[in-house]
């Protein structure tokens, strides 16, 4: 199973096991990782699961789709490494992925 590492705003690191096919957001919720609210449950409707993908991983993770990009355009603290974690699907290729969660999603 792929492993994903979440780094929170206090620089605390949690590495958890993910399942292929689930989203990075679902992986975080399932493992009680703080810093991701995911109010809409993954419907790409709320932009409260914003993460920063580690620069080493951004190429593999890929860029946001148009709906996601529009949501990100107006979220707080967005960078070129920003993604909505509900839109990143876990695959074996993402084993070892590192993402950072923000202080607040609102």
């Amino acid at each position, binding site marked *: 199973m792929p492993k994903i590492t979440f780094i929170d705003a206090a620089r605390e690191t949690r590495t958890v096991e993910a399942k292929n096919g689930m989203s990075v957001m679902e992986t975080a919720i399932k493992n009680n990782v703080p810093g991701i609210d995911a109010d*809409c449950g993954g419907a790409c409707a709320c932009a409260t699961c914003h993460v920063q993908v580690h620069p080493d991983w951004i190429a593999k993770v890929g860029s946001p789709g148009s709906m996601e990009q*529009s949501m990100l355009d107006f*979220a707080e603290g967005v960078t070129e490494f920003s993604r909505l974690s509900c839109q990143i699907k876990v695959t074996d290729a993402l084993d070892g992925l590192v993402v950072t969660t923000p202080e607040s999603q609102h």
Partner: protein
Amino acid sequence: MAERAPDRVVIIGGGQAGCQAAASLRQLGHAGEIVIIAEEPDAPYQRPPLSKAYLKGEIEAERLLIRPESFYAEERIELRLGERVTAIDRAARRVTTDAEQGEAGLGYNALIIATGTRPRRLAAPGAGLGGVFELRTRADVERLKPALKPGERLCVVGAGYIGLETAAAARALGCEVTVIEAMDRVLSRVAGEELSAFFANEHRSRGVQLRLGARLEAFEGAGSVSGVRLAGGEVIGCDVVIVGVGVIANDEIAREAGLVCDDGIVVDRAQRTSDAAVFAIGDVARRPLVHFGDRMMRLESVHNAIEGGKIAAAAILGAPHPAEDAPWFWSDQYDLKLQTAGLWTGADATVVRGDPAERSFAVFYLQAGRLIAVDAVNAAPEYIVGKKLVSLGAMVAPGELADKSVAMKDIAARALART
């Protein structure tokens, strides 16, 4: 005898709101007991997918869970599922339940009522026939799913969000679908005419028979439903009926306890009821909306459930009041994502941005020049900016909004400068 635990918070109801309140209490440092008492047998789960992805069989039950089962043990949140609270004794600060085993009475220091709503039932003859369903709980969907086989004729009563989402899902499952609506347009309660016309057109183009201004008189059939009869006598044959004609607040337990209610439990900005130790959140609460002049509203949405849970937890612990969002909501039908923010009632002007024929557009609702709501279809920038401007009560220029060549970012900047 139930002991009185000075630091115990009891939450009645295990939906999105109750679950959020429990999680927020822990996040904010509550060290005492948290007990969720919920009638449904499932751990707290998300309801929105019930009429969308879950109905279509695209996701399994486990993915509905708001939190993994392990969360509750780790956070020391006691889940008492399949148990009903029968009374609240406010003087003794104690609830009684129908628990057959163990303690049927439970003391509280603070009580949160998050009992939600239940579907309104039609009084029409035959409403109890087999094949007539409602859609609120996972159990409802488990009963309904086997009936939605390809080729089956489904009649949806009510063209609100639940009705239209169900119709879209049933079309994807290969059912023949008729939607009956008493009003002369779909989504009449929740949106303006532009949006109604768009969605009516979409459903028709997907093969849904829309019967607007149609009054249902009776369900026909012997044992199992075989049709619905409209006023005037016409019978629409069907094998399955889903009734989605609104909900009723589950506020009886609060009323019986003497709490102030008015189609829902009346609360203040801190979600506090007329009893300082009792809070109400989610669909069952009637709360003042700070972005709308403290208008008292009962909102049925995930946003309202989550926000209420956070606010009540903060109030109980004396933590700072969380910032409120303008009300927001979404609906998925076919390949359309509707995102909406604010409240459109009271609008004196509407502005359409984009062309509905292109299936990406937004309707902005204005009142005295201020933006009070937005409905965006496949139009995330319009939604996100609209929501922000609604929450700020921003003055907007209709001409700018209607002009697609002016970016939403620029519209936001100009509106903020004007406000």
